[in-house]
């Protein structure tokens, strides 16, 4: 599978004029002045316009075409040391002021249940800032016939492959415009786009049925992603039928312990679940205990927890080009940055919002607040969390060459992890046996299962930059009410020793 190198630096676009034409500053004045008059020590207003398109295809026919535009505003306050939040529709000063009043009402009702006053970490004022993500072509500027035509072209090519019985495909497009203002004087206006194409081939036969999906990750790019920038969909679609046929006919894996060489197309998700979520400080402090869960990486272990091997270096960032979590300023007006999470195998940092940073005396926030819509409150959400490659490090083939008996893991599929981020289980799109340093054909029915720190401590080597890929997902879930966040994870290929592998065919009733 060839990955096309990035093209020239992406054009910088202006923010959608229909968004900047809204009375953003007048709404901010109305909401924030009302909040100030009601005695709030902190208040912010967000106006958000989200445009989302989703197309799905079954074989070579369109199955569903939906577009959704969200436009609304939200006011969050700290009143008498207590959070209050209200959101609504109607972009008028009256509505904005009323939302400030309702936010104060929710704070008052909540006051008896709030023994500790909310404090926020300091942040410089960022006045009149704008930021636009790196993309070439706004996917919503592309003709609908061209968008569907491209997906149907790829579907037809996949369906024509030998042994492919059916195909399914989807295309998810998002453009996000946000305006933020707070009592301190920060005002930011930002826009970003992202796209997620995916195609799956299905093989039905005497073997039962088997599927294989494209490895192309969702990306903070525009329509150019479908036409050759950042990924070669035509080349990948051409390869899948023969790979699927080999997978369908592959022998079932023998359960046991194996050395694993894991490609970033799979490892990004393991990073997400076992590092990304485990190093959210709100989880470590128990704020998510009843739902998303807590973390084994408790705060008292900051600076001492032996998370992984010495070759493990993990950062959080909201700045990388085409990263799904990249932004100029977060939803609390904090400037985006890059920070260390694991250094040389030791836990050295957490993801923060302003409340968590203040609660633990960690200085300024590192900018990880995000709300997925105007109807939801900002909470600490994951930045791009990435495993560093080794400069000049080995290729995937060289990593495979170090393995006597193992498996080479490609592409993500099924994932699950417990509520303290200890025990996880992942499957993949393709698993190859490694025998004496060489690939020896696919096997199937594979799931690898480990405890997080056992797994990362078993990482003997990471690949070089040539193995690096920015993977990611649109749909990271957290919080109640539930919110969905897009996030990227960069990773090289990596070699792990002695990981437990299940044969899934022998699980359940078997």
């Amino acid at each position, binding site marked *: 599978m060839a990955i096309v190198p990035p093209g020239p630096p992406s054009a910088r676009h202006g923010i959608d004029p229909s968004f900047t034409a809204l009375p953003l500053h007048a709404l901010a004045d109305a909401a924030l002045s009302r909040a100030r008059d009601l005695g709030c020590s902190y208040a912010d207003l967000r106006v958000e316009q989200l445009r989302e398109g989703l197309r799905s295809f079954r074989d070579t026919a369109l199955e569903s075409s939906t577009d959704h535009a969200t436009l609304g505003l939200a006011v969050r306050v700290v009143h008498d040391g207590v959070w209050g939040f209200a959101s609504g529709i109607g972009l008028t000063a009256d509505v904005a002021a009323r939302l400030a009043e309702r936010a104060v009402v929710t704070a008052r009702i909540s006051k008896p249940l709030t023994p*500790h006053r909310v404090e926020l970490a300091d942040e410089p004022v960022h006045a009149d800032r704008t930021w636009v993500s790196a993309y070439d072509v706004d996917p919503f500027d592309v003709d609908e016939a061209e968008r569907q035509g491209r997906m149907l072209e790829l579907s037809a090519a996949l369906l024509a492959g030998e042994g492919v019985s059916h195909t399914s495909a989807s295309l998810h497009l998002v453009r996000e415009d946000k305006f933020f203002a707070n009592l301190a004087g920060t005002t930011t206006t930002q826009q970003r786009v992202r796209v997620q194409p995916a195609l799956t081939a299905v093989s039905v036969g005497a073997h039962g049925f088997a599927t294989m999906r494209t490895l192309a990750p969702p990306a903070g790019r525009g329509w150019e992603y479908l036409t050759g920038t950042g990924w070669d969909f035509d080349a990948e679609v051409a390869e899948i039928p023969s790979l699927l046929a080999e997978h369908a006919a592959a022998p079932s894996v023998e359960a046991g312990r194996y050395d694993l060489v894991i490609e970033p197309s799979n490892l990004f998700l393991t990073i997400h679940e076992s590092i990304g979520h485990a190093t959210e400080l709100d989880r470590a402090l128990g704020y998510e205990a009843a739902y998303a869960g807590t973390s084994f990486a408790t705060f008292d272990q900051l600076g001492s927890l032996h998370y992984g091997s010495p070759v493990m270096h993990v950062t959080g960032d909201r700045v990388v080009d085409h990263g799904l979590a990249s932004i100029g300023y977060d939803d609390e007006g904090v400037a985006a940055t890059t920070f260390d999470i694991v250094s040389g195998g030791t836990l050295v940092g957490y993801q923060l919002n302003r409340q968590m940073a203040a609660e633990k005396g960690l200085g300024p926030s590192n900018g990880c607040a995000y709300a997925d819509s105007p109807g939801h409150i900002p909470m600490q959400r994951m930045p791009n969390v990435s495993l560093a490659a080794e400069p000049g490090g080995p290729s995937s083939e060289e990593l495979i060459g170090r393995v006597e008996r193992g498996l080479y893991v490609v592409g993500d599929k099924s994932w699950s992890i417990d509520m303290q981020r200890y025990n996880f289980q992942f499957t993949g799109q393709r698993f190859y046996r490694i025998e004496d340093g060489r690939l020896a054909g696919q096997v199937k029915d594979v799931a690898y299962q480990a405890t997080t720190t056992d797994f990362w401590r078993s990482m003997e080597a990471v690949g070089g930059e040539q193995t690096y890929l920015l993977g990611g997902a649109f749909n990271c879930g957290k919080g109640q009410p539930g919110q969905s966040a897009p996030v990227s994870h960069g990773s090289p290929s990596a070699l792990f020793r002695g990981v437990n592998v299940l044969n899934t065919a022998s699980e359940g009733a078997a």
Partner: protein
Amino acid sequence: MSVADLLDEALRVATGPVVAVLTERHEVNLRWAANALTTNGEMHGRSLAVTATAEVEGGTAVATVAADLTDVGEVAALVAAAEAAARAASPADEPVPLVADEAHPEDGDVRAEPAVTTVETLADVAAGLGRAFERAAADGHLLYGFAEHVVSTVYLASSTGLRRRGVEPQGRLELNGKSDDLGPRSASDDDPAEGSGGRPPVGQRSAWVGQATRTFDDVDVDALYAEVSRRLGWARRTVELPPGRYETLLPPGPVADLVIYAAWTASARDAEDGSNVFAAGEGRTRIGERLTPLPVDLLWDPAWPGQETLPFVASTMSPDGTSFAFDQGLAVEPVRWVEGGVLTELVRNRGHAAATGLRATPPADNFVMDAGGTATLEEMIASTQRGLLVTCFWYIREVDPERLLLTGLTRDGVYLVEDGEVVAAVNNFRWNESPVELLGRATEIGASVPVLCREWNDYVSKTVMPPLRIPDFNYSTVSQAS
């Protein structure tokens, strides 16, 4: 201008076949952690979704465009966008005309104003939580959880003359209690620099209870806390067990989480294509096959008492992936998809129904399982010699769609039952099981009761489920989480 007027405007400006669905949504919530409120909110939204069809080269196309709406002046542009999207779309698979006009007196006044909820709905809950927090502090417990009330009013109008309206109130309260040793590791724990990453603090206990409600009038926070306390008491003694197969009692909540996943994969079209667990090969489905020797009925019914859901189709796709874009407004009928232990029906839209000569079966947002059992969970515990009682499942994901093999974890309450009594808490496990295969292996099914599931209650809060006895539930590994 009333909300219903927005639909009049949509029909007035439409130039071809359209169906318009307006959803007015009010929601309020409280969230808490460690005996203190953490977040709250009062939200209001209004969305209009317009689905248009158009004749295009090669057939009929359909597209839906939706937007949050504040003013009648925005409707025309939205309808025009939907019609343009339909004209630009490629032909749909198995198109059918939009649902025809039909009287639905049960809807009442289809022009009535939307139902509303405000944060004051949760005032009594807040007071109850205040009392619970005080008791918990005195008992050495920490309480975590979430309460939410959502009231959606859905209006539907089509160019075929159909007008419908429905109100769907949904509420839930989740209460998780933990012993107050959640915090930093104690000095007696394993050295985190070695071994398997360190064990959670010794003695940590956790229990979860939940309740679905339409109004919150029936929510008794004191009683919910009492149940949490009872279960935390069960965990004063702990037993470590290795992975393996254990006789297991699944209360109604975990059963709901498994049944919901099975229902979400019940696409007839996929089964005929050979690509889900209900496929029988060569274009055939498993309809008619006995899944269990027990007399199990699985059904959805929008009029099930206490679990009422919207009685008509108002979305373009069901959770199993079946498109219902042409079928919006269609009445959702009760469907008994497993009857007497035999698979009898799958999810099918009108287009595929016409193609196959079978009936359309849009799913409701509630799920009922009934096998005529009469034993309560307590009675099933009392009749258990040795087994596990698993109160919550978590992070359920599909491993193998061919068997519907799922993986997941136990959470917030795994208990050892010996000689008819709960005697200790047990460590958590990762499991790998198929709900379809479990149905065939169940040896006892108790009395069905309304229940709030744990894993999927963001999506489904209306279920009626029984407890199950599984003789050999498969736990693959131990999870250190507590």
